[in-house]
């Protein structure tokens, strides 16, 4: 607009073609993925002996579990960026808030087994605190922690989104403000006095719901839960984007003023999808923390949030499966790269950002689509 050159996005980008939830082929692919993730994978890990070729090691369980959490985040990012055209640079914050909410429960289930054998977590003993601060109350109940996982990111996103969308902050302005928000929270959580463990965050978890957290069965249960959540959110996302609501969201992305002139108030549509996206992120964070075993404020660093955007961009905005595959591809690449050439990973990531935006604006999914069209 400043350059006097209107940007018209490709009108077909991600516009729902089918009004049915999934095509028959889609359903069978979906079922296959569900069986592999929910049945085959756990069986191969738990029942096949460790020396067998078919055995799946702990390393892969943790890695794929982690990547599925990232994939959920990328999916949430896609709903808000790919379909509604709002680039958030604060999704790392919602992810971390969900993680911290779960982490509070996990910290309290450590009980007396900390280094100082106290009722309080070690970092509070270290600060010489005598009792839990008020915002830690009830966090020893799993149900409350789960509610907090949804409420903390949800409420923050709702309030922030309400004020931002109401004054029609959009485009780059919105992105920059969300980045400032996550930066502010990072600074806040880095303080020891905030009561979330400062620099070190939460770690050394012992058990979840009474089960030891390092046991293979517990890990597998977390893995299966994450996989189920991912499959569920895929379906939810598909349901949203094929509905009338999804059509309005896409319309807001492509021409917000026209939507307004047609009698819709974009505020509530944006606010809904923004809050939902944040909640999905929070749930991903809550699933991530028990599997990885640590949460600290560096999860809120602006760099992390921007990386989420690149997973989505690599996979292809405006498609649901694309971001999931994009998150998987980038993170598998990262774990291979950081082991093989640790000093070159940032070069590779930087190049990825540039090349994808320059040459692959529709991501891997777009590549696949154009090949299908040609044949």
């Amino acid at each position, binding site marked *: 607009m400043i350059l006097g050159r209107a940007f018209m996005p490709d009108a077909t980008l991600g516009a729902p073609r089918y009004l049915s939830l999934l095509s028959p082929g889609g359903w069978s692919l979906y079922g296959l993925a569900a069986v592999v993730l929910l049945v085959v994978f756990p069986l191969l890990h738990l029942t096949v002996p460790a020396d067998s070729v078919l055995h799946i090691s702990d390393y892969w369980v943790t890695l794929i579990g982690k990547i599925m959490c990232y994939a959920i985040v990328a999916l949430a990012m896609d709903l808000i960026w790919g379909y509604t055209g709002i680039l958030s640079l604060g999704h790392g914050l919602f992810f971390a808030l969900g993680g911290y909410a779960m982490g509070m429960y996990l910290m309290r289930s450590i009980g007396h087994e900390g280094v100082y054998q106290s009722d309080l977590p070690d970092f509070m003993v270290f600060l010489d605190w005598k009792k839990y601060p008020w915002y830690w109350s009830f966090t020893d109940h799993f149900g409350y922690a789960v509610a907090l996982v949804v409420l903390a990111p949800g409420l923050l996103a709702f309030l922030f989104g309400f*004020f931002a969308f109401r004054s029609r902050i959009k485009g*780059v302005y919105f992105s*920059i403000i969300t980045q400032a928000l996550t930066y502010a929270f990072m600074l806040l959580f880095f303080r020891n006095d905030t009561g979330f463990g400062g620099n070190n965050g939460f770690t050394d978890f012992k058990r979840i719901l009474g089960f030891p957290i390092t046991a293979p069965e517990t890990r597998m249960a977390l893995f299966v839960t994450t996989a189920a959540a991912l499959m569920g959110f895929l379906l939810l996302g598909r349901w949203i984007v094929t509905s009338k609501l999804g059509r309005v969201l896409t319309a807001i992305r492509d021409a917000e003023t026209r939507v307004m002139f047609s009698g819709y108030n974009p505020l509530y549509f944006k606010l809904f999808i923004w809050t939902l996206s944040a909640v999905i992120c929070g749930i991903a964070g809550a699933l991530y923390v028990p599997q990885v075993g640590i949460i600290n404020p560096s999860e809120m660093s602006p760099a992390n949030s921007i990386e989420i955007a690149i997973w989505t961009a690599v996979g292809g905005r405006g498609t649901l499966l694309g971001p999931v595959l994009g998150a998987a591809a980038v993170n598998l690449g990262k774990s291979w790269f950081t082991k093989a050439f640790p000093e*070159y990973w940032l*070069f590779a990531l930087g190049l990825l950002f540039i090349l994808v*935006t*320059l040459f692959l604006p529709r991501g891997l999914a777009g590549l696949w689509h154009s090949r299908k069209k040609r044949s």
Partner: protein
Amino acid sequence: MKRLVAALARGCLPSIVALLASSAMAAIAPQTIRDLAFGESDDKIKAIGALSAGGDPQALPLLQALLDGEVQTVGEEQVLLVQGEKATDLLTGKTVSPLPENRDDVVVNNRIRRGLGTAIAALKLSAPDRSARLAAAKELQNSAGEDTLGAITTALAKESDAEIKELLSQTQASIQLASTDRATRIAAVRTLAESSNPSTKTLLLAVLEQKGGSYVEPDAEVRGEAEKSLRAVESKLTTGDMIGRIFSGASLGSILLLAALGLAITYGLMGVINLAHGELIMVGAYATYVVQNLFRRYAPGAFDAYLICAVPMAFAAAGLVGMALERCVIRFLYGRPLETLLATWGISLILMQAVRTVFGAQNVQVENPSWMSGGFVAMTGIVLPWSRIVIIAFAALVLLLIWLLLTRTRLGLFVRAVTQNRAMASCTGVPTRRVDTLAFGLGAGVAGLAGCALSQIGNVGPDLGQSYIVDSFMVVVLGGVGQLAGTVYAALGLGIVNKLLEAWSGAVLAKIAVLVFIIFFIQKRPQGLFALKGRAMET
């Protein structure tokens, strides 16, 4: 030249010392020297006091030697001044050679050491050199006792320099507070009202203290005067504190201004969101580092001038990187701000890693030239560092130059024309592509200047840019797009507000409060402080 001085020093110094030892020491009564060397602690202190009060200039080298452990005794008869392999008998003034084996150190305990320090300072007060006297007066201010009162009074009578005089009279008053004479105490309390030293406040508070129901100071009039003085001192301290805070706010503001000015050009005028802006700042800082190293290796004599050479180098380095970026990446993304944002983030990652590979991940050392070290003393206890003052002036200069460039040159005219209406500008023959490249290069170059300035007051490392990127975007967002004035007000305002809040709530909370404030501010004025007025509906 240096070698000559060194040779002279090596050759002459011992002989001078020997001369002092033989002629000067003889002037000091042998009994005093005996007391110093063999006496009990009390005797030694009395001897030191006597030497100090006597104001004998020849006492200074002796006391200094005693403090440095160069005075040694042999048995009960010889007192030696031992310097390297040479020794002089202080009582007879004769050179002793070779060194006797059975030497003992003169015991100097903490109490004597304190006494020596004060006495030496008192003696230095009569030095002909002003800076030596000033240093001595400062030392005395914090450690003076009643035994130096005489020396201070003598010095005060002779002193002509206003700054030293003030210091001395403060010190004198603080000693006189312990006097038994009421009038002396009142005079002392009144003198203290002139002070702006935080330790004076403690001193006056001690006068007003209550112990076991009765005041430490028995006289009501003295207490009344003390209270008046206390209020005067406190108000001066508050003023000083405020000056310091506003200054550091202005300093932060000038840094934010430098960091945000480049962004105001690339984002405000061109609409390009450049997340690699912080890394362009870093490039400028590393360019300064390289220039510094070149000067250190090839022209150590002109080291103080390196900064003058580094300024254009930093501008050129960052500007060239910026123009290359514009040509290779950003040009293809005009009109797609969100994609630009991601691509420039990728660029910033690559630049950071490149610097890490070339210069290492550790911070590098950039030294201030000597004319930027030290500071301007605004009041006692408040020193405004020269480096920060220079940066404030530098920021103002850069601002002026950019303003001139944008409003008074052909390039500036073109930039403004392209900003307002690209198609129309192109129609009238403005080479829009070249203007884009040059304007982006200008914005990047100004970022390089910011890096050059930052290298003088902070750490230079690969992460340097990251810490400024969020702040400088906040400045541009707050100031409004397309206006330099908005950037200036926003930068200075944010800097000062940040520092004032910092004193009240701590650094992190201040930063968060400012960010929250900006988020709410945008509610009221979505286009920033100074929005361009227009009726066009945004698309």
